[in-house]
Structure formats: structure tokens, C-alpha cells
């Protein structure tokens, strides 16, 4: 690692708290148009945050109804038809309208320019357009879901979706098609920004790992999304115009759809999780006051995941009628893609070694992420292994596995990110006690929800069943009980974060004493992020040297500590 760092004796004293500027991005105009026509990446990030919170709520309600229905073997509250629409609504809304845009569109928009010391993203108007395109697509989807629903599952497998379903498949698919463009715009914007707009001294090797993660994500968004867009167009052409593409009765091939769909949708899983990994690297270093263990390994494993992730799509199709040898090949490649994720987990754990660890809410969410993501990752190996996948495929084992990765991994990383950057985004601190309580409740509720589903899956309970044989009931009740706790856990941040906006303490510029450039700007930040051109002097995680990336001494971190000891902590270990 060639990271240059300032020698301890040259460190300036702790810079004074920057004065709150008269104009920050929040009070720079109050009208509704000042938000709807803004090209400020921070405001667009907030627009995304508000919309995504709404969609997460819709998807969460659908999930709640699904779990409630499964309380009874005969289906407690919904008919088959209603249930099918409900789990589809849950999947479509959560995947296309929450998970895929979540961290890139909210945190990426807001913090990529700030972390690399830029004024804005490379294409601010394109950025605003991406939000409008997203909302138009989301409008189609939400309309499709509310006006009667879709009953195909989010995977939209033809010929069911193209020739047999009598529900709103076309507007739903069209909505997904449109939101894809938003994803491409955001990816393009972040990639161009990282390439061209880094502040002086911000070399690739000094870039925070969050930027590396989003760079890898943008790569997937740019290369993968067009494929699913074409696939959805073909599906709509078959459905609307009756041109045979996927339906064998019209000379099509149903497996062609699955290949094209998973060619995007497997990498899309990495669009969802890799940004979360970036967040974890930021937080775990800050709250253990350590350099990241193996910067290059963590950075390049993100890129490795993005590249190898494109070569494993057929592992969703081991029992779908692909040839024997292609099953072997894809199983083997999937084993390879599991390695970089394992590397990351070990590196994060090693980062804690000899740290000075405190447990504020962002750190608790991060630790929960590490446990849940590890379980989610290793259970993926059962599905990558051919001999076990031929039984576990399409059972609740799969459901539990991807919820561990998507919710235990991604949603917890998203929660961690919100709690970490909330003071910067809003200028307010939230309740320390309630945020820690929420992290704990979510962790416990999550385990209780999804661990029983592994047992159900091992015993063969298929997914997408509104009713089931009676012997599966006990574990379903456990899972629904867990989901209630989980729901409560999600409700808590909704309340205390909202309250913090009105009653929260004013946040200092750098409440966590973190090293990133975004903390050099006051909270909430200036309209143009920085009043000066930041000149980056050292790598991103010099906590043991107690300097930020500008080479300035860090303020006192929160948490227990001895008074007047800060100045003595600059020794190189």
C-alpha cells in the first residue's frame, strides 16, 4: 500500500468546528419547485430517500399480509389468487423499487461527490432525470400492483406471464423496463464522476471503499440492465402482439427468457449487495478506530464480484432443463464467486482486531450485517452445489437464503448507512437509545423470521404456496411471529428519525470523528459541498494516526474515553 500519510508531528491541531453556513442545501429554497427542479445531488438523494421509504412501506405491508396468510395451513386471510398477487407485489416493489436503487441512488447520489471532494455529480441534470424516470416507471408498477395486481411472481417466467396470466403483466413489465433506464443513468453518472471529478490528491488508492463498491455496482448497472430491458420488451411483444419468442406453442423457447433474465438478475443481486459492502467498510473502520484490514483485497474483491457475477447466471436454472455439462460449469463458477465475499467478511472481522470499539447504532447494524450476511452467504453454497440444489431449489430454503442476503445484508447495510450519515444529511442527531434498541430488535426479529424457513426448505416446503400440508405449520407460525418483531423494528426508526428532524440535537460537522471528506463540510453541507477545494493528503482510514483525509486531526469521537488523552494517540502501531 503506497498510501502516503502525514507524519504525526506535522499534524495540525483539531480544526475548529466550521460555522454553520447561512445557506446550506436544505434551506436554499423552500418551495416544492425548489425540490422538484433541483439539480443538487444532495436534494436528489433526499428525493430518492423519501420515495424509497414509501415503496419500502408498500412492499413491507405486502410481506406482512403474505406472512399472516401463512399462519394457517389453509391460508388464513387470502384466497389463492389474492396471495399470488400479494407475493408478486412484495417481490416487484422490494426488488425494482427499493433494493436495486436503495444505496446507489440515495447514498451514492448524496455522498459520492462529497467523498471524492467534488461539487456535484458529473451530470446533474441527468441525475434529476433519473429520478423522474424512476418515478414514472414506479408509477406504472404501483398502478399495475394496486389496480388488480400481477400474479406471475417477480421473475415473470413465460409462457405463464406472456400467454396465461390475466393480470396486469404488461404495465408492470413496462414499469420495470422504464426504471431500468434510471438505474443506467445513475450508474453512468457515478462512474463518470469517480473517473473525472476526484479532488486533488484523491488517487484511486486513497478512495474510500464505498466509492470502489459503487464503481463496481455502476459497472454491473451499465452492462446488465440493457439485457433485462430487451428481455422485458420481448416479453411484452409476445404478450401484446402475439409474436412467439418464449412460448413453445408459437415456436419460442421458455428457457431463453430465463437465460436472459438471470443474465441481468443475478448480477442485479450484486447491484443490491455490493454497495452495502461499501457502507460496512466505512462504518466498521470508524467505530473501531482502525485502518481497514487489506484495503486492496476489499476494493478488488468488489470488482471481482462484479466481473465473475456475470458468469454465474445459470445457477438459477440447475433443474430448469439446462444440459448436464453447463450445470457443472455454472456450479463451479458459482463456487468461485463465493470466494471474494468470504474474503471481505474475514477482512472486516480482522479490522476489529486491536481496535477501540464503540457500539453506536451504525456499528450495531454493521455487526448484525456481518453475522446475517455470513449466514446468507454460506447457505448459498447449498444452492451452488448441484447435489443439494436439486432438492432445495424453489423451496423455502432459497427464500430464507436470499432474504438473509437481501434483508440481513442489504437492508441492514442501508439502515447502517442511514444511521451513519443521518447527522450529515439532516444536521440532527437521533436518539442513541432508541436507535440501538431498533438495531437489536431488527436483528432478533430477523433471525426468528428466517431461520425457521431454512428448516421448512430442508423438509421440502415449496415457495409461493398460500396453503401447505399441516406439518409445516409450527415453523410458519414461528416465522410469522419473527416477522411481527421485525416489522416493529422497522417502525422504530420511522418514528425516532422523524422526531429527530424536529427535536434532535444539532449535529456537529463530524459527530463520529470519521476520516472521510464528507465530514469536512458542515452538517448539513453547503450547497456546493465545500467552501474550499479539498486537497487530499492521505488514505481513507487513518484512524490510528487520528487524521482525516485532509491530514487534519480528528475531533474527539463519541463514546467512553479518558479526558486529555487524545493527543497521545498518534503512535504508528
Amino acid at each position: 500500500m503506497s498510501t502516503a500519510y502525514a507524519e504525526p508531528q506535522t499534524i495540525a491541531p483539531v480544526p475548529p468546528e466550521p460555522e454553520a453556513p447561512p445557506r446550506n442545501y436544505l434551506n436554499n429554497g423552500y418551495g416544492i419547485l425548489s425540490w422538484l427542479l433541483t439539480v443538487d445531488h444532495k436534494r436528489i438523494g433526499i428525493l430518492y430517500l423519501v420515495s424509497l421509504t414509501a415503496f419500502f412501506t408498500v412492499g413491507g405491508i405486502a410481506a406482512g399480509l403474505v406472512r399472516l396468510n401463512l399462519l394457517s395451513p389453509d391460508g388464513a386471510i387470502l384466497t389463492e389468487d389474492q396471495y399470488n398477487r400479494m407475493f408478486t407485489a412484495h417481490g416487484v416493489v422490494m426488488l425494482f423499487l427499493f433494493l436495486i436503487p436503495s444505496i446507489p441512488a440515495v447514498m451514492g447520489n448524496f455522498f459520492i461527490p462529497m467523498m471524492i471532494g467534488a461539487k456535484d455529480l458529473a451530470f446533474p441534470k441527468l441525475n434529476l432525470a433519473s429520478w423522474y424516470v424512476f418515478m414514472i416507471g414506479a408509477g406504472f408498477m404501483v398502478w399495475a400492483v394496486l389496480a388488480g395486481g400481477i400474479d406471475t411472481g417477480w421473475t415473470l417466467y413465460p409462457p405463464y406471464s406472456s400467454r396465461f396470466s390475466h393480470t396486469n403483466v404488461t404495465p408492470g413489465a413496462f414499469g420495470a423496463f422504464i426504471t431500468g433506464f434510471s438505474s443506467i443513468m445513475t450508474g453512468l453518472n457515478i462512474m463518470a464522476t469517480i473517473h473525472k471529478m476526484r479532488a486533488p490528491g484523491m488517487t484511486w488508492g486513497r478512495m474510500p471503499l464505498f466509492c470502489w463498491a459503487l464503481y463496481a455496482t455502476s459497472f454491473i448497472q451499465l452492462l446488465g440492465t440493457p439485457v433485462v430491458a430487451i428481455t422485458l420488451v420481448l416479453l411484452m411483444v409476445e404478450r401484446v402482439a402475439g409474436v412467439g419468442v418464449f412460448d413453445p406453442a408459437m415456436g419460442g423457447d421458455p428457457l431463453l427468457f430465463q437465460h436472459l433474465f438471470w443474465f441481468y438478475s443475478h448480477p442485479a443481486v450484486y447491484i443490491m449487495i455490493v454497495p452495502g459492502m461499501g457502507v460496512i467498510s466505512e462504518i466498521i473502520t470508524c467505530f473501531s478506530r482502525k485502518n481497514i484490514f487489506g484495503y486492496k483485497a476489499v476494493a478488488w474483491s468488489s470488482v471481482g464480484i462484479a466481473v465473475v457475477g456475470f458468469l454465474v447466471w445459470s445457477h438459477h436454472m440447475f433443474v430448469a432443463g439446462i444440459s448436464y455439462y453447463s450445470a457443472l460449469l455454472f456450479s463451479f463458477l458459482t463456487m468461485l464467486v463465493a470466494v471474494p465475499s468470504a474474503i471481505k467478511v474475514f477482512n472486516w472481522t480482522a479490522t476489529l482486531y486491536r481496535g477501540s470499539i464503540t457500539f453506536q447504532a451504525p456499528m450495531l447494524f454493521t455487526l448484525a450485517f456481518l453475522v446475517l450476511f455470513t449466514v446468507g452467504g454460506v447457505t448459498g453454497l447449498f444452492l451452488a452445489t448441484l447435489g443439494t440444489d436439486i432438492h432445495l431449489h424453489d423451496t423455502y430454503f432459497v427464500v430464507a437464503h436470499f432474504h438473509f442476503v437481501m434483508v440481513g445484508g442489504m437492508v441492514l447495510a442501508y439502515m447502517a448507512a442511514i444511521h451513519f450519515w443521518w447527522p450529515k444529511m439532516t444536521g440532527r442527531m437521533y436518539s442513541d437509545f432508541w436507535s440501538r434498541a431498533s438495531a437489536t430488535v431488527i436483528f432478533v426479529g430477523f433471525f426468528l423470521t428466517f431461520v425457521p424457513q431454512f428448516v421448512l426448505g430442508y423438509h421440502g416446503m415449496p415457495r409461493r404456496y398460500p396453503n401447505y400440508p399441516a406439518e409445516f405449520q409450527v415453523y410458519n407460525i414461528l416465522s410469522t411471529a419473527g416477522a411481527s418483531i421485525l416489522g416493529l423494528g422497522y417502525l422504530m426508526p420511522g418514528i425516532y428519525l422523524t422526531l429527530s428532524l424536529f427535536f434532535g440535537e444539532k449535529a456537529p460537522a463530524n459527530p463520529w470523528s470519521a476520516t472521510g471528506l464528507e465530514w469536512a463540510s458542515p452538517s448539513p453541507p453547503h450547497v456546493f459541498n465545500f467552501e474550499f477545494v479539498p486537497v487530499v493528503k492521505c488514505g481513507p482510514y487513518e484512524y490510528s494516526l487520528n487524521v482525516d483525509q485532509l491530514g487534519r486531526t480528528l475531533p474527539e469521537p463519541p463514546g467512553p474515553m479518558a479526558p486529555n488523552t487524545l493527543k497521545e494517540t498518534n503512535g504508528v502501531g
Partner: protein
Amino acid sequence: MTELPGLADRASVVADRFEPLFWYIVACTSIGTLIVCVGLVAFCTMYRRKRGDTISTPRILGSHKLELFWTVIPLIIFLTFFVWGMWVYDGAVHPPADAPEIKVIGKQWMWKIQYPSGQRVIVGGNTDVMTDEERNLVGAFVLPIDKPVKVTFISEDVIHDFGIPAFRQKIDVIPGRYVSTWYHPNKIGEYHLFCDQYCGNLHSRMVGKVKVVSQDDFDAFLREKADGSLAWEGQQIFRKLQCNSCHTPNAQSGAKVHPRAPSLEGLWGRDVPLKGGGTAEVTEQYIRESIVNPRAKVVEGWEPIMPGNYESQVSEDDLTKVIAYIRSLKSGKQIPNNEKFPPPDGAPRDMKTPAGSTGGSKP
């Protein structure tokens, strides 16, 4: 409330191979997860900042040796999963050549099962909307113990998936294409049969039971309702559709009148030359395609005069029967057209001649 056993029911050779692999992965991944969790808990306890601590942390940037260690070790372990999994998979997907073949046709939302003897069963489905004939066939998927059977699947409409948890096997059932797997049940009992690929409204009602029974019970089951062998039924359809006006079913009669289409005798498994070059192996898939889409592959030396409307006239059920008939036409065997066709290989020898059957005179 019935409860699940600790270990899931096992009733086939593949299931017996699945379990050790499954628990081996459970063991390895549990140890791995435990190492991470113990690391997290230990570090979080030992290095938590206490009141009075100085915030002094060493500047550790990483270690190539450790990095290499935790890249290579997991990779090696993952590859053991891969190799063992490949072995189990290999045993699960290649049917033995001599196993009797059962046909399963998936349809929203039932499984129609055809045994080589002609015995038919319907599993799952909504009995309220069935025809009387279908309702009479509702039952379980019966299999003999300790005997491998090959099962070939096709779907009439959307993608389904035929999954039997106690056998630890499932396979997607695709429209327009035959796929096969095989089962080797080894424990008598009744087990769940699920549709595992979402297929529409009553997906969760496309379920039923698999019954593994003794050979004697299986023979009795085959005699229960059978009204002829599958190939014999295929012959009836072959005549009803008047395929034999062009395709003479044996070479003898073909020589008397000038044939307009190739003889189908002894065709199965051969390579036939195609118009425009190349050859095609005669398989189920090839015969099916030649019936529903006859212009796709035309045999060298013949004109593409076969009508293209059979797809609308022949159901998947009937197609499998016609294919069974064509498959049974061994070369050199003289088969009088008016005699009841003998059951094909794999059907029980003592199958009774169904009463009232008069062979080819049935409409």
C-alpha cells in the same frame, strides 16, 4: 398439529446420497460461520472502549499471508462441495438404459401420469372442474420399491416442476420439450409430491402423494384400471388421425401401395438423413417435432406434404401415446393391422387383455 421429524423422510437412493452431502455442508459452513462469530464476539469484547481507555490503535494495514490463507482455504472447501455435489447430481440425472419409462404430463393444475401398461393416474387438480373420466383417474403416483424407473415429463401449458422431497429430487417440466429423470425408491410409504415452479392460480393445489409399494402391489396397481398398453393406445390414435394412409406402419403393406411418406418401422434410435444435409437422431423430441411442426425437419427423399395442423388436433397425452407406438415398431416384426398390439417392453407380462377390446376397430 402434526410436527416435522428432525431429519426429513428419505425414500430413495438419491435421498440417501443427499443427506451426507447436506450435513457435510452444514458442518463446514457452521464451522466457518462460528469462526466469524467467535471472532466478532471476542474482538468486540476484548477491544471495546472502556471508560478511561486511551484511543490508541495500531496501524495495521493487512497481511498478504493471511489474505492468501483465507482465499485458498475457503476455495478448497468450496471445491469439495462442488465435487461431491457433482457426484450426487450425476447419480440423480442419468437414468439407467433399461429402466421402464413412465410419462408425466403437467397441466394447470394437475399431473397426468401414464404407465407403460396403459394405466393412467391423475395427481392433484381441482376435482370440481374435471371431466368424469378424469375424476375416476385421481390417485397417487405409485412406484415399485427397489426398482429404478425412468420418468419423462412434458407440459401442456406453462412451466411446472415435479418435486418429491422424500426423493430429494425435482425437475422443471417444460412445454414443448421432453425432459427425463429417474427414481430409485427404497422405502415403502406415502410421500409428498409438489409442484415447485409457480404455475398460476392453483399452483399450491397441484400436489399429491407418491406411494412407494412392493412389487406385488405395484403389479396389482398396474392391472387395476389398465385398458391396454400405451403403445396400443397410440396405435388407436395413429389410425384415428389416419396417419397410416401415408405412413404405413410396416414395410410389407407399404410395398403394395406407393408410399407417400417414410415407413416408421425400426425408426427409433436411428440417424435419418435430412433434406438440405445433416442427420437427425430419432428421439422422442424429434418425433414430437415432426408431428407438431412437420416442415421443420424433412427426411431426405420425401416431399414436405404432411399437414401442419396436428398440433391443434393432438393433445400432449395423445402425443406421448403415438410416440410410444412409433417407438414400439421394431424393424422386421410383422404386425397385422387388425390384431391387438402386444404390450411393449417394460410392461408386466401377465397383463390381462382388457375385456371387450377389439383392437383396431375402436374409433
